[in-house]
C-alpha cells in the first residue's frame, strides 16, 4: 500500500499544527463558532447530538495493521473504546473532546492518517472496490488512481469551497462493488479499441434528496489526462453549480439542468485549455504510485486445498462462514475474506478497540498486514491463503467477528441515525438490530439468499436506502418516527433507484413490514431468482397488496 514520503508527512503534520491553532483560537474566543465551524468541518470534526464526532479518512478503504492498531488506541485513549466504520470507507469516533482533537490528529499523523476533507464542501475521500488488487475480474488496481486523486484533491486551493460536497469513486473491475454510478464522479476502468487502459467517466450520480444515476460524459479517458479532466469538470461545477439552495447544489442537479450534452461541451471546452498543462500525469509518476500497490509475493499454490475441504466437512459453522464470507481471489490457492461487522442485534459497522487490535493481528498473520473497509460497513482481508482460512476464522470467532452473513439479509447498511446524528429524523441502528433479531435464523437467511437492506435516518441518505433491494427511510411524522419503504434499488453495475411502495410504517410496525416483503418475495420467486429479478418481473403490486392488506 501507499507509504508517505517527506512531502506527505510534512503536509499532514503542518495540517495538524494549523488545526491546533484554529482550535486554540476558538477556545480563546478569537474565533466565533460561526467562523470556527467551517474550519473544524474541513478537518472532519462535527458536533452531533451528544458530543463531537471526528471522522477520520481511510483513503479508498485501505488500512495497514499498524494503522488499525492506532485507531484502536485512539478509541481507547480519547473515546469510549469503539469506532464506527462508515459507508464512505471511513471511521468515526463519537466522543472526542474538542481540545483533544489536535492530539488525536497528531497521533494519527504518526501512522500516515488524517481527517482532511472528511467533511465540508470539498472533494471527499475517494472510494473504491474493497476487493481491489485481489478481484479476478479486475483490469488494474484502481487504488493507484485513488491515491493520485487523493494527492491532487488534498487542500486543492480552487476546490475547497465548492457549491456542495464532492465524491469520487473508482473501480477497476467489471462487477461494480464501489457504486460508481451514484457518485458525483464515477471512474470505471476500461480498455479502448487499441487495448489501452483508461477510464469511462460517469458524472452527476448521487443519492440524497434527489437520487440520480450518473451519466457517461466520456467513454474513454487516457490515464495521463485523468487529473486535467477532473479539474475541468470541477472548474465548470465550481462556477455554475447552484449556491442558492443547499438541496440543489450537487453536481447532479447542474448536469440535469444543463443536459449531459451541453455539460459535456462545457467540460471539453475547459479541458481543451488545460489538457496539456502541468496536470498531465507523467507515465513514470503513475509507475511510481503503481509500485506501492504491486501485488504481494504470492506463493505458488494449488487452488484445491485439502485441509480446507476437511475443515468444511468437519465444522458446519466454519463451512457456513466460508460459504458467505469468502470470495474468489485471482491467485490460485488464495481467497478474500469478509469480516462482518453485523453481528445479530448489534450496531452495523461498530468495532470495539479490542476487535480492531485482533483484526490487526490477524491481518498481520494471514493477509500481508493489510485491511480493507467496505462501503457496506464491513472489513476485508484481501489476500488470505486458503490453507489459513480455518485459523483466521477461529481467530475471528474468538472476538465475535465471525458472523457468517456477508451479503445476506442481516448484512445491512445503516447510518448512525437519530441515536447520534444532528440531522436525523428517526433512528436507524435499533431498526437494523430488530430486523437482524427477527431474522436471526441463519438457515432462513440462506434460504432467502442475497438481499440488501439499507437504512437511512433522514433524506440525506447516508444509509444508501435508495439503492437497497429494500430501502428504509426514516421520516418524522408529528414528532414520531416513521419509515418509508422503497423496493428494487441496486448499487452495482445494474444501478437502480428503489420505488416507494406506499405510506410509511411506524417504528413498531416496520420490522413486520420487512418480513412481509421478504415473505412475498419468497412466494413469488422462481428458481434461481434474486430479489431484484423477482421484483423486476412482478413489480410493486404483490408487495403493496401484502403490506397494506395486512396493516
Amino acid at each position, binding site marked *: 500500500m501507499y507509504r508517505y514520503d517527506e512531502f506527505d508527512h510534512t*503536509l499532514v503534520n503542518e495540517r495538524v499544527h494549523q488545526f491546533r491553532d484554529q482550535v486554540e483560537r476558538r477556545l480563546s474566543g478569537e474565533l466565533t463558532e460561526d*467562523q470556527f465551524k467551517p474550519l473544524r468541518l474541513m478537518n472532519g470534526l462535527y458536533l452531533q447530538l451528544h458530543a463531537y464526532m471526528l471522522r477520520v479518512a481511510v483513503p479508498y478503504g485501505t488500512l495497514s495493521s499498524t494503522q488499525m492498531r492506532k485507531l484502536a488506541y485512539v478509541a481507547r485513549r480519547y473515546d469510549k473504546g469503539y469506532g464506527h466504520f462508515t459507508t464512505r470507507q471511513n471511521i468515526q469516533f463519537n466522543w472526542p473532546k474538542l481540545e483533544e482533537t489536535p492530539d488525536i490528529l497528531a497521533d494519527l499523523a504518526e501512522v500516515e492518517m488524517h481527517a482532511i476533507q472528511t467533511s465540508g464542501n470539498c472533494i471527499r475521500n475517494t472510494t473504491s472496490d474493497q476487493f481491489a488488487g485481489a478481484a479476478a475480474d479486475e483490469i488494474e488496481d484502481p487504488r493507484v488512481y485513488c491515491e493520485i486523486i487523493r494527492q491532487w484533491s488534498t487542500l486543492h*486551493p480552487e*476546490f475547497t469551497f465548492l457549491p456542495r460536497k464532492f465524491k469520487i469513486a473508482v473501480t477497476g473491475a467489471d462487477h461494480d462493488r464501489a457504486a460508481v454510478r451514484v457518485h458525483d464522479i464515477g471512474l470505471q476502468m476500461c480498455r479502448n479499441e487499441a487495448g489501452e487502459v483508461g477510464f469511462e467517466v460517469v458524472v452527476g450520480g448521487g443519492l440524497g434528496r434527489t437520487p440520480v444515476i450518473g451519466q457517461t460524459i466520456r467513454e474513454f479517458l487516457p490515464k495521463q489526462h485523468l487529473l486535467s479532466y477532473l479539474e475541468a469538470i470541477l472548474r465548470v461545477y465550481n*462556477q455554475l453549480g447552484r449556491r442558492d439552495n443547499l438541496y440543489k447544489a450537487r453536481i447532479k442537479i447542474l448536469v440535469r439542468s444543463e443536459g449531459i450534452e451541453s455539460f459535456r461541451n462545457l467540460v471539453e471546452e475547459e479541458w481543451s485549455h488545460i489538457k496539456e498543462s502541468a496536470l498531465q500525469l507523467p507515465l513514470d*509518476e503513475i509507475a511510481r504510485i503503481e509500485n506501492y500497490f504491486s501485488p504481494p509475493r504470492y506463493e505458488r499454490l494449488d487452488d484445491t486445498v485439502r485441509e480446507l475441504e476437511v475443515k468444511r466437512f468437519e465444522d458446519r459453522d466454519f463451512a457456513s462462514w466460508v460459504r458467505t464470507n469468502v470470495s474468489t481471489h485471482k491467485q490460485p490457492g488464495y481467497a478474500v475474506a469478509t469480516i462482518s461487522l453485523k453481528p445479530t442485534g448489534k450496531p452495523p459497522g461498530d468495532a470495539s478497540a479490542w476487535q480492531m487490535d485482533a483484526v490487526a493481528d490477524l491481518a498481520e498473520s494471514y493477509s500481508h498486514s493489510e485491511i480493507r473497509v467496505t462501503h457496506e460497513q464491513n472489513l476485508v482481508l484481501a489476500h488470505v491463503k486458503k490453507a489459513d482460512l480455518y485459523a483466521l476464522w477461529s481467530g475471528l470467532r474468538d472476538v465475535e467477528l465471525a458472523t457468517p452473513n456477508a451479503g445476506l439479509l442481516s448484512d445491512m447498511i445503516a447510518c448512525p441515525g437519530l441515536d447520534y446524528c444532528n440531522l436525523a429524523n428517526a433512528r436507524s441502528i435499533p431498526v437494523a438490530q430488530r430486523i437482524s433479531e427477527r431474522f436471526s435464523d441463519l438457515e432462513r437467511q440462506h434460504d432467502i439468499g442475497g438481499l440488501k437492506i439499507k437504512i437511512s435516518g433522514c433524506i440525506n441518505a447516508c444509509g444508501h436506502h435508495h439503492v437497497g433491494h429494500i430501502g428504509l427511510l426514516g421520516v418524522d411524522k408529528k414528532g414520531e418516527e416513521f419509515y418509508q419503504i422503497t423496493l428494487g434499488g441496486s448499487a452495482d453495475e445494474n444501478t437502480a433507484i428503489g420505488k416507494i411502495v406506499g405510506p410509511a410504517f411506524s417504528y413498531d410496525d416496520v420490522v413486520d413490514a420487512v418480513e412481509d416483503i421478504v415473505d412475498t418475495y419468497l412466494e413469488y420467486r422462481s428458481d434461481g431468482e434474486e430479489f431484484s429479478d423477482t421484483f423486476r418481473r412482478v413489480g410493486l403490486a404483490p408487495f403493496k397488496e401484502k403490506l397494506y392488506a395486512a396493516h
Partner: protein
Amino acid sequence: MPLIKEGVLAEDSWQALADEDELVEGPIVVTLDRWQSEREALLSRNTPIGVRLKSDQTPALLADDLDRFAVVALEFPKFNDGRAYSYARLLRDRYAFKGEVRAVGNVLRDQFLLMQRCGFDAFEVANEAAAAAWEKAISEISVTYQPGADARRPALALRRNRPAA
C-alpha cells in the same frame, strides 16, 4: 478597508465606485455594469481603471477588454462562495492577466493561502489584525500537490527533481 499587498498593509490608491457615484479623479474601480454601459467615456479619461466582478460574473465576460484594466477585483459575498477561486485561475492561466487580482468582500485569514495559490495578489480585509496574521497564514502549509497560479512547485515536480536514492 485595509489592503494587504505583498504581505504588508499597503496604501490603496484605488477608489471603488458604486454605480450611482459620480466619477472622481484618479484611479477608479467600477462595476461590470458601469463598464459595459460607459465603456467609451471611461476609456477617454486616460486614468488607470479597474473592474469589480460579483461572484456570478465570470471574467470571460471581459475577455477582450482585460488589457484595459490594471485591477480586477473579485467579490466573495461570503467566504464560502468559492466561485472567485476559479475566476482568479482563469484570469491568470487562461487570459494571462498581469494586473492586480484583488480579493474583496468576506476575505479571511484562513483563506489567504488558497487565494494566493489561485492567483490573487491583493486582499481587502476587515481589520489590520488580519495583516498581522499574513505571514503565518500563507506559510502554515508548505507542501502543495497541485499546480496553481502561484510560484510554489507542487510535490510532483519536486519529487521528479530530487536525486535518485
